[in-house]
């Protein structure tokens, strides 16, 4: 029987007690003596010349301490860094324009920060915001992705001659020659719209400047506390050791919190130093719809060529990707789309081109899935269309094109977002498909269930799609493991945590080698004073990269424990075992010593630490994979459509997922559930709707519809385990997986439900209103 906290056990979460009793610290829980509150004046216009910002009436309001416009920042005003430069792709043109702390001369999207007010309370700060006179001369906005490249489109960044932010071509084989004799080509235009990450906790920052110690402390909802610390130290001219960034408990990250050096993140620390008072800014929900980054707008023109058996000869794709007003995150999103399109399939020839375009909309950076769903949507839809044309079963066309288990490592011959070649480490796709088909009762659905529904006048359809997800990219993470004299184990790692269960899964990785329970491991994440090397939590990499570092550090400490115990127990190391917090000589239960006692022995108050040894039972380790590991899965759905009201009801949802070795199946399932919920939102509910003026029409949860608990069905899950050869634990990431294939799944199931004369579903999200238009035979409405 596995121990309850062994690697692979569904250990209950260490963090839940604190979360459920409200004793966990979130940024807004930080209250400091003399703390002031910040609110921002934001642009009502999507595009315009900023003629004047008059702060005098705001400054005159009692309780207002300071107000700043761009010019008041002096030399500190500077555009943010380009966080992710483009990978070394041969055919790549790239133009960088990054966000500014406060708009100067020009505003480029609604909600862009124009001025910052500091006041005794948030109420007064917002009263003062209303008193700031902003004079903006409107310019024609660029409101659509396609419109960005129109000849007469207004230019968003004057230094460039168009709104094209990048043009990239990646190619494998030769699509044209290889597909010259294709039995079938299917070509369509696919659209995906924008969504918000909609975390339960918005962004927030508290900055405290201790002038006597010359130390700056920042509580920040960031997914990347260490890079934030390093960057702010540099910007503010402080030693890195004098800047501490704490990312405490965070109510959901989903990607936009890995975006770094947001205006507020740069301004609060600076102003706290200016004013010598602690400052707090908590993003309100409305601000979050403009000031936090978003994702998903893309338009693909894609073609699939297959032979008469449905085998893929090649894919050709040309797409537009909206980056919003600035592009601090480089090409991560479109490259993810480009690479993930290939899916679990053997695609011998691939020609893929994209243009990244600036628009007058909020900034685009990765949101859970980060462009991957787009690739999956295009490929899965093309396969469905090809299967229909060839009269092939949709599961069969996938099966025929899966990379076989002996094809790994498989080189797709293009570059991935982590600059490494897109090489799949391992995979075994057919068993996942078979399992999903069995769980969703595919054969019986086709033969009995669907006809029975039809006979009863019900419109029910089934969908089944495959996907892969590149996860766990480098560069590296680290961890330090310490056995304390009370026998508890302390684990510190640099990544922040936003609800992924790191306090438990990392604890399990450390607990097993050290023979303690996960509950005896105290995990510290996201505090630069405890661990200050690392990058952050993103790209489904926490378990892969930080997890392996935790495990490596624990193994190193295990070595020290055994060496110290061998001395103490006068035994040979190979005769020792660690269990229940003690080291025992195997077969001699009386010869035992606790980890706490060993920790005390290893850090003596008298006697010397001899040269070549270190005090304590502590070790620090780092892990950096040579490249990412490729997770995969199959989702299946049964849904019902009310043809009259165009409402969709999910009857069943099945996920078969392969994330390599599972550390904690309960946490993995939780991640899948959350991801599927997010995916259902993106497929059916969530859409940021902008009008022709690039005004966001639904900047509240009244109109931006996130699926609630009652809108997310019971999710049946199963695991396939194909370990990754790229890390000692054999794990792959799972954080984003659930969200990735849902749009394609919905589309297929809707078509399947509507039967032979179904309209094609070539876009996501797919609202009832849109379904109504399609059912009315009006695809262009």
């Amino acid at each position, binding site marked *: 029987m596995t121990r309850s906290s062994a690697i692979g056990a569904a250990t209950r979460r260490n963090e839940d007690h604190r979360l459920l009793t409200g004793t966990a610290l979130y940024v807004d829980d930080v209250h400091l003596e003399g703390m002031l509150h910040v609110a921002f004046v934001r642009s*009502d*216009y999507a595009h315009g010349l900023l003629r004047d910002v008059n702060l005098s009436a705001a400054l005159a309001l009692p309780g207002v301490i300071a107000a700043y416009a761009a010019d008041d920042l002096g030399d500190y005003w500077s555009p943010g860094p380009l966080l992710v430069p483009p990978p070394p792709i041969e055919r790549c043109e790239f133009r960088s324009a990054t966000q500014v702390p406060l708009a100067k001369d020009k505003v480029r999207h609604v909600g862009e920060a124009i001025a910052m007010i500091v006041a005794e309370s948030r109420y007064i700060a917002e009263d003062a915001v209303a008193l700031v006179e902003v004079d903006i001369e409107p310019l024609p906005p660029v409101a659509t992705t396609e419109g960005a490249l129109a000849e007469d489109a207004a230019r968003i960044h004057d230094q460039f001659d168009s709104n094209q932010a990048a043009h990239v071509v990646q190619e494998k084989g030769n699509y044209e020659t290889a597909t010259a004799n294709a039995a079938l080509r299917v070509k369509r235009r696919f659209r995906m719209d924008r969504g918000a990450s909609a975390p339960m906790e918005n962004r927030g920052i508290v900055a405290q400047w201790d002038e006597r110690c010359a130390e700056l402390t920042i509580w920040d909802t960031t997914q990347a506390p260490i890079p934030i610390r390093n960057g702010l130290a540099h910007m503010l001219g402080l030693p890195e050791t004098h800047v501490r960034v704490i990312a405490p408990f965070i109510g959901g990250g989903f990607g936009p919190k890995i975006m770094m050096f947001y205006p507020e993140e740069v301004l609060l620390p600076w102003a706290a130093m200016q004013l010598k008072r602690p400052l707090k800014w908590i993003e309100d929900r409305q601000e979050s719809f403009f000031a936090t980054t978003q994702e998903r707008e893309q338009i693909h023109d894609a073609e699939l060529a297959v032979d008469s058996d449905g085998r893929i000869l090649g894919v050709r794709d040309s797409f537009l990707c909206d980056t919003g007003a600035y592009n601090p995150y480089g090409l991560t999103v479109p490259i993810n789309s480009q690479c993930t399109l290939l899916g679990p399939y053997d695609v011998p020839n691939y020609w893929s081109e994209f243009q990244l375009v600036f628009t007058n909309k909020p900034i685009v950076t990765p949101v859970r899935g980060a462009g991957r769903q787009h690739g999956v949507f295009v490929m899965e839809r093309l396969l469905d269309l090809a299967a229909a044309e060839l009269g092939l079963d949709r599961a069969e066309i996938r099966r025929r094109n899966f990379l076989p288990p002996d094809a790994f490592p498989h080189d797709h011959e293009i570059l991935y977002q982590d600059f490494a070649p897109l090489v799949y480490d391992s995979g075994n796709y057919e068993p996942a498909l078979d399992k999903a088909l069995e769980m969703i009762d595919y054969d019986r659905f086709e033969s009995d269930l669907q006809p029975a529904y039809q006979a009863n006048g019900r419109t029910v359809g089934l969908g089944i799609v495959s996907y892969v997800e590149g996860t766990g990219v480098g560069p590296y993470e680290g961890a330090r493991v310490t056995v304390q004299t009370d026998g508890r184990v302390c684990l510190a790692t640099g990544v922040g945590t936003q609800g992924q269960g790191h306090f438990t899964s990392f604890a399990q990785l450390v607990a097993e080698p050290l023979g303690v329970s996960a509950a005896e491991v105290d995990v510290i994440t996201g505090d630069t004073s405890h661990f200050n090397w690392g990058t952050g939590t993103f790209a489904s990499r926490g378990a892969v990269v930080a997890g392996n570092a935790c495990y490596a550090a624990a193994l190193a400490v295990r070595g020290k424990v055994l060496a110290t115990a061998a001395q103490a127990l006068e035994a040979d190391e190979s005769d020792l075992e660690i269990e229940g917090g003690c080291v025992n000589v195997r077969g001699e239960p009386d010869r035992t010593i606790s980890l706490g006692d060993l920790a005390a022995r290893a850090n003596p108050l008298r006697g010397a630490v001899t040269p070549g040894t270190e005090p304590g039972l502590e070790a620090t380790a780092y892990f950096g994979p040579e490249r990412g590991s490729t997770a995969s899965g199959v989702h299946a759905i049964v849904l019902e459509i009310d043809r009259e009201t165009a409402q969709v009801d999910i009857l069943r949802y099945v996920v078969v997922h392969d994330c390599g070795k599972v550390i904690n199946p309960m946490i993995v399932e939780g991640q899948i559930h959350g991801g599927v919920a997010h995916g259902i939102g993106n497929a059916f509910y969530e859409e940021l709707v902008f009008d022709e003026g690039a005004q966001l029409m*639904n900047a*509240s949860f009244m109109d931006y519809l996130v699926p609630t608990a009652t809108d997310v069905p019971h999710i049946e899950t199963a695991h396939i385990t194909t370990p990754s050869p790229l890390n000692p634990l054999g794990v792959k990431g799972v954080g984003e997986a659930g969200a990735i294939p849902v749009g394609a799944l919905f589309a297929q199931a809707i078509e399947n439900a509507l039967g032979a004369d179904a309209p094609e579903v070539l876009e996501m999200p797919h609202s009832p209103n849109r379904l109504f238009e399609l059912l009315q035979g009006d695809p262009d409405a």
Partner: protein
Amino acid sequence: MIIQSEYLFDADRPTVYAGLQNPEILARALPGTQTLEIVEGTRYAGEMVVSVGPVTAARFEVSVELTDLVEPESFTMLVGGKGKAGFVDGRADVRLEDRGAQCLMVYKADLGVGGRVASVGQRLLDSVGKAMSQRGLKAVDRMLQ
């Protein structure tokens, strides 16, 4: 946002046309207008306080310009409004038709709305636009009697 509608005035076409050139009467067409004065020719400016449902006493600086005047048949009305709650910007093409002693106004307005009003008010914009234009024209009609 497009608002397309019509209104039947209890006055003849020349009266309606002439009335709408008078800032005092024109002001009635925009419910909530407190002041509207001639800036130059057929350009007007003033202040408006809008109260509709959840929106109470939202102040807007308004500007109105009548262009493409074809007496007494048609004109175009350019409207701009700017306040703390957001802004409105748009044009309305207005056509007047004889209906015996009455006059039918056919109008099509293309309005852009921005700021907070747009970002949280979308559900009601259509209705508010329609209701306000009809209310305004009714007030003009009464003024013309």
